[in-house]
């Protein structure tokens, strides 16, 4: 099964794939994506097709070549699923299967990876083996939401393929109006800035909501993302309905000896111009070989900590801030999530329960209030922040806004 050849030999194989071999049809346009120093997905596909003699793959390459020629896509959706689930497989049928019958079906299984996208080589190999058996062998690591995308199976093989994967411990991700697969940054596993356990929280929350992932019952998609600190390495603010971002209260921790070493190494000028001067609220000062921070004015932007990582660290009283309502362009234009929970501890099981409760109530509020195909950010915008806060029982705080309103058009309850 797994080719036992060494990496270098495999490389040779990859090189050969640049000719279309005997198996594949001509794809002159796609072939032009095989030149140049960046690795080529076309080369990869051809290598695979030539080795496995997958007719599906040949058909898909033919159709893709035709797309390049005609500048048109030829897939349509449909319904392909596995027992008990209403989501997780993206069905693709060719609309020109008369022309490319080999590409008639090309469905994708969205498989939820472990939080943080960590693998053992064994776990990946096992998955590859199943996938080579039941599918095309194309794997995207990863989709933009974080799924492993196993691209190219058929209706008849889907269930079996999933069963085998499920036996290995994998489950499907979200699609359609469901709670979607999440992403979390590498966090505490390898990052000194992590203010909470991104991987653990992701794991627990998504496991808790697994039913909502598999069975479409929401007005539209709903995404959580988990970033360990305000650097937001998962882009959660724009790419998720609920961004759980690590932060801290209290003072930034300072190791003044390290500050001194940075002054020696980078120069005081650099620190003045590229650290101190860039603090958004001018909360930080360099005095000789020491740093002083007015923590009341610090807005937890991370910049000074990023720049002087050996000397500065997030304060010890850590937790998360939660932003709600991020989403992409569609219909209303990009939306960035906005602060709804200024600070929440997220350490104990009880804290975790609070987060689950918060998520549950939020999803319920949204399901009750949203129009069809309306993300929660749109719903909040439509009904007003007040209705959302009331519905959720959240205390309003000034942290939620950049500034108070600039119009008098509201009606206090009476």
């Amino acid at each position, binding site marked *: 099964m797994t080719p036992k050849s060494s990496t270098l030999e495999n490389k040779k194989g990859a090189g050969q794939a640049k000719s279309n071999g005997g198996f594949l049809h001509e794809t002159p346009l796609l072939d032009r994506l095989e030149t140049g120093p960046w690795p080529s997905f076309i080369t990869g*596909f051809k290598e695979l097709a030539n080795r496995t003699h997958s007719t599906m793959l040949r058909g898909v390459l033919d159709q893709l070549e035709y797309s390049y020629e005609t500048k048109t896509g030829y897939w349509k959706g449909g319904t392909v699923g596995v027992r008990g689930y209403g989501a997780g497989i993206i069905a693709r049928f060719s609309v020109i299967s008369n022309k490319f019958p080999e590409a008639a079906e090309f469905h994708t299984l969205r498989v*939820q990876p472990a939080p943080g996208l960590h693998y053992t080589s*064994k776990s990946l190999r096992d998955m590859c083996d199943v996938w080579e058996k039941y599918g095309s062998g194309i794997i995207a690591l990863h989709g933009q939401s974080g799924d492993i995308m196993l691209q190219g199976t058929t209706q008849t093989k889907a*269930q079996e393929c999933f069963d085998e994967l499920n036996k290995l411990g994998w489950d499907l991700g979200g699609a359609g109006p469901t709670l979607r697969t999440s992403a979390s940054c590498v966090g505490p596993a390898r990052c000194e800035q992590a203010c909470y356990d991104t*991987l653990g929280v992701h794991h627990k929350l*998504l496991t808790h909501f697994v039913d909502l992932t598999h069975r479409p019952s929401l007005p539209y998609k709903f995404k959580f993302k988990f970033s360990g600190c305000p650097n937001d390495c998962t882009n959660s603010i724009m790419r998720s309905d609920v961004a759980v971002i690590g932060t801290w209260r209290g003072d930034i921790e300072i190791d003044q000896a390290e500050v001194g070493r940075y002054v020696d190494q980078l120069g005081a000028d650099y620190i003045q111009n590229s650290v101190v001067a860039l603090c958004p609220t001018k909360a930080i000062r360099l005095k000789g070989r020491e740093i002083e921070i007015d923590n009341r004015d610090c807005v937890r932007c991370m910049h000074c900590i990023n720049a002087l990582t050996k000397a500065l660290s997030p304060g010890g009283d850590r937790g998360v801030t939660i932003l709600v309502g991020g989403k992409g362009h569609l219909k*209303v234009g990009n939306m960035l999530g906005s602060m709804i929970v200024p600070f929440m501890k997220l350490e104990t099981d009880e804290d975790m329960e609070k987060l689950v409760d918060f998520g549950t109530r939020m999803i319920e509020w949204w399901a009750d209030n949203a129009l069809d195909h309306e993300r929660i950010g749109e719903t909040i915008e439509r009904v007003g922040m007040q209705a959302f806060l009331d519905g959720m029982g959240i205390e309003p705080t000034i942290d939620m806004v950049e500034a108070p309103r600039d119009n008098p058009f509201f009606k206090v309850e009476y």
Partner: protein
Amino acid sequence: MSAQAQATTWKTVESGPPDPMKFLHPLAVKNYGRWKYHERPRPGVLKHTAKSGDALYTVRAGTTRQMTVDGVRRLCNLADRYSDGYLRFTVRNNVEFLISNPGNVDPLIGDLEAIGHPVGATGNSVSAIAHTQGWLHCDIPATDASGVVKSLMDELIDEFKREEMPNRVRLSTSCCEINCGGQNDLAVIIQHTRPPRINHDILNNICERPKVVARCPTAAIRPATVNGKPSLIVSEEKCICCGACFGACPAMEINHPEHSKLAVWVGGKHSNARSKPTNMKLAAFGLPNNPPRWPEVADVVKRILRAYKEGGHPWERLGEWVDRIGWKRFFEATGLPFTKWHIDNYRLARVSFNKSAHIRF
């Protein structure tokens, strides 16, 4: 055993995402949550030092994202050889090997490059381009994201391997206006320029008409009888070519080989470092959708990155650089034309107007 028969024997375990701890490198488990700082010994390599004194090296390399079992197995081979069998992927589809033995770093880099995976993407580099499905798989794409990415990265690979930009640079591409690639310092996104043509023959069979009508953000779609059959029509004037209707109904054919064009966006930022996160803004539009290499797009992208590389101050993200120098200088520095369509005319347009006498000459 038929697929059907086998299926019934296995009872699905609805496990959700696997437990991450099972997949973590032992040093990551040992020092979980107790890292102290990191360094970047060279581009593509991180060294994280834990409070315990342990050091964990990371080697980061580019992939095609659209990989194959063969390619993945090759990476697994390298992991077995150099990183105790542990590897991970970044949110930008780069592969990372977590290494306890510093002596493995250089050989791994050699092997990675030998099989075509460029090593880099750390620090102030241009990392890999986040991208989407395109003609390979999506049902609504107007271009091919993987192809655009391959063409662009061929030109940007040196910046991927170096750390010479003012700050990290994130790019994305998307194959329709929905923009699954998300926003970034620089994003290449297809854009429709014509209202959907309606395929009246199929519409009634395959779409729920009220749903399609409701999907339109500008109320441009209304029910009508066409050729004696109930169908829909679109007000050309109202339609903003967003493509939302096409997502709801394939009969609302918005994609067009000529009229779907590429646009380049700049200044998206998610991190809270220094400035608040920002939405990206339109830099160039109407670029031809020109497979297989999209040279016009590459030209614009390189112009922008070159200007930023020259003009950006340390730590300034692309959008922060533009904010400092002003958009007037951005258009000057890149030589891109400013047109009336760069001016917002959508629902929050007024917010973006220059409501001041502040002006640069």
